[in-house]
């Protein structure tokens, strides 16, 4: 159903701006009076004010992106670099393992980033990295107040991101594949 917005021409009284003015006065005066009595949204919620009492962020709030580990504590990221590619402010920088690099810290996945850096000064919390991640390895979590004393400190490395990200259980597709391959016994399965 399309809604038809009534745009009838204003009458003379309305064109004097007076009704709009009165409305404005009414609303602002109401809020002013309430605030002067010490009541506002923050007190309604009963928490207090921000720096002392952190916001209660809503469920599904999208704050800073962090890397997560699976239920076995292994790095989920396989360094596919799609997040680096999609990142609009180019905040993500991944160093791939390279030919001599160390494999993943879980069997069968072959690959994990040598270094994974997010420059939180650049990050705009847009969530595209989470959206694009095929491994469900990066999630926007509920941190919203990131601070640091210098620019270097605001570049979060892999270790820090994994620590902040915590464990995020998933389907563990690489492990699943490995088990499937073992069951088939058609080829010797190499496990390193």
């Amino acid at each position, binding site marked *: 159903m399309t809604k038809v917005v009534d745009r009838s021409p204003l009458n003379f009284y309305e064109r004097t701006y007076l009704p709009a003015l009165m409305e404005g006065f009414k609303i602002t005066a109401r809020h002013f009076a309430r605030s002067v009595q010490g009541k506002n949204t923050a007190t309604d919620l009963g928490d207090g004010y921000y720096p002392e009492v952190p916001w209660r962020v809503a469920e599904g709030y999208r704050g800073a992106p962090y890397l997560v580990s699976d239920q076995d504590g292994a790095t989920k990221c*396989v*360094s*596919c*670099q*799609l997040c*680096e*590619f999609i990142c609009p402010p180019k905040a993500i920088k991944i160093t*791939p*393992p*390279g*030919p001599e*690099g160390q494999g993943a810290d879980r069997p*069968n*996945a*072959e*690959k994990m980033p040598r270094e994974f850096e997010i420059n939180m000064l650049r990050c705009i919390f847009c969530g595209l990295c989470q959206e694009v991640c*095929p*491994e469900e390895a990066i999630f926007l979590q509920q941190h919203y107040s990131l601070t640091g004393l210098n620019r270097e400190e605001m570049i979060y490395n892999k270790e820090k991101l994994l620590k902040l990200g915590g464990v995020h259980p998933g389907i563990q597709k690489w492990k699943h*594949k490995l088990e*499937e*391959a073992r*069951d*088939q016994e*058609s*080829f*010797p*399965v*190499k496990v390193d």
Partner: protein
Amino acid sequence: MSNAVTTAPAPTAPPPVEKIRIKVDGRDIDVPKLMPDWQGKLVPTTMLQACQMAAQEVPHYCYHPRLPIAGNCRMCLVEFGTPVMDPATKKPVLNEDGSTKIARSVLPYEPQTPRGAIACATPISPGMELYPSSPATKQMREAVLESLLINHPLDCTICDQAGECKLQEYSVQHGQAQSRFVEPKVHKPKAVDLGPRIVLDDERCILCTRCVRFTRDIAGDDALGIVNRGSYNTIATAPGKQFDNNYSLNTVDICPVGALTSKDFRFKMRVWFLKETKSLCTSCGTGCNITIGSRENVLHRFEPRDNDAVNGSWMCDSGRLNYPWIGRADRLQQVQVRGQASDWGTALGEITTHLRNASDGSVAIIASARQTTEELYLLRQLAVRVGALTDSVEREGEADRLLVHSDRNPNSQGARLTGIAYTEIGISIPSIADGIRSGKIKTLIVFGEDVTKCGIDAGLLGKVGTLIVSDILPNATTAVAHYLLPGCAHAEKRGTFINAKGRVQKFLKAVEPKGDARPEWEFLAELTKSLGAVDGFSTIEGLFNRMASEVPALAGVEWSKLGDHGVNVPV
């Protein structure tokens, strides 16, 4: 343009080709009856080639224009129809409206179902109609792709081919969003070591046999084959054999999926980040055309670039892997004057003064045939100005059957044509050595060569009054240089090489030079200008055109006419 220059290896005036009229998606098109196959032999034109001429792309995996046709992936299935022939008169049967009656191909036992033909291997016939975008063709493609993906591991996230993978591309165009295959997939070996440079992932393989055909028919090293049966088909090397010929990495390029990957490039960088720069391989006189993949000033890989006149689609592994030195940490990055760090202004100023006061015949120049033609030209002008003896250094190796040339210098012809070297490269070096020994030559200018390895040993070098050296990496000559001018690798500058067969080809800049290093032609142009030898040039285009107008062999060539594939000049 003079007659001296010919563009491309002129497809020797094609004989009048017989044309056939067919219909592609309802549009009439005339296609030649015969076309050259991978060996250049004329064979009947295929449906796939006809569709390509009609600008209808037919998806395919196993077909490769430079390989024999196998026709085993079935991706190129196309619905078609042929004119109905009256068996009695041998004439096409006409419809009521006068058009030719067409019989669409159908399954013999199921006449209502269209039948496709593999476009890559089916020759066309007069009056044939191809339907590369008909619903039946689409359905066939979808079905083939679905079956190819049944056992595919879908590990694009860790696959180096992702981004240039035909399986990915065709899945987007012709694939289905969801797999209907719910059973466990067949698992095959992963990360199999095929040879010193190749890793195989059998799960990703679609058994197109491009690699098998390449290594058997092009590289002439029958190392690969398919073993096992049915779902357990895998690519493998012949027992006791390694896949280690000097062209093995080409199979990585032609592998349409991520089954064969390069050990050198493995997990190094995702391909969509790579900036592609058209360049040339400098490892020998063949001058293979390459594409440099780089990101943020780091070189990641060389890949062959198609050029029928030089290298087709291939290049050798040794040339392909000959890039890490460009990023070496010990690259020369600092202008030095008598061992002390200096700057370009000071060094070039002092060199100018020195050369201006040098007496005729007291200067010798040893250039390198690994330098660009423009640089050699400028050095030649410098030599003419100061009356110097010039030569360059020979570098011989073993040639092979396919691409590797015995001359390992990329620009020997450039050195000869610009006059740096005479008919034979390197014959003047003994006389330069004699000149130094007798004290006649007091100033030696060396570009890009370690002269201690080619007849002027360290003791003799010590007798040189002023040693001016430009190079890229440190060596015994740079260590004793009075003036050390850091130069650029070819990936860091622009210029041209003339290959052993006299093809002038240009290459472009992929990465920035390190530290103080500057393209040699830039500071040579400044030097020759301040010496009054050549007007200053600030662009490579201007310099090249000037050179072309002065070097007889290059008459009529212009930078803008070089194109991506170069032009031939008489040598």
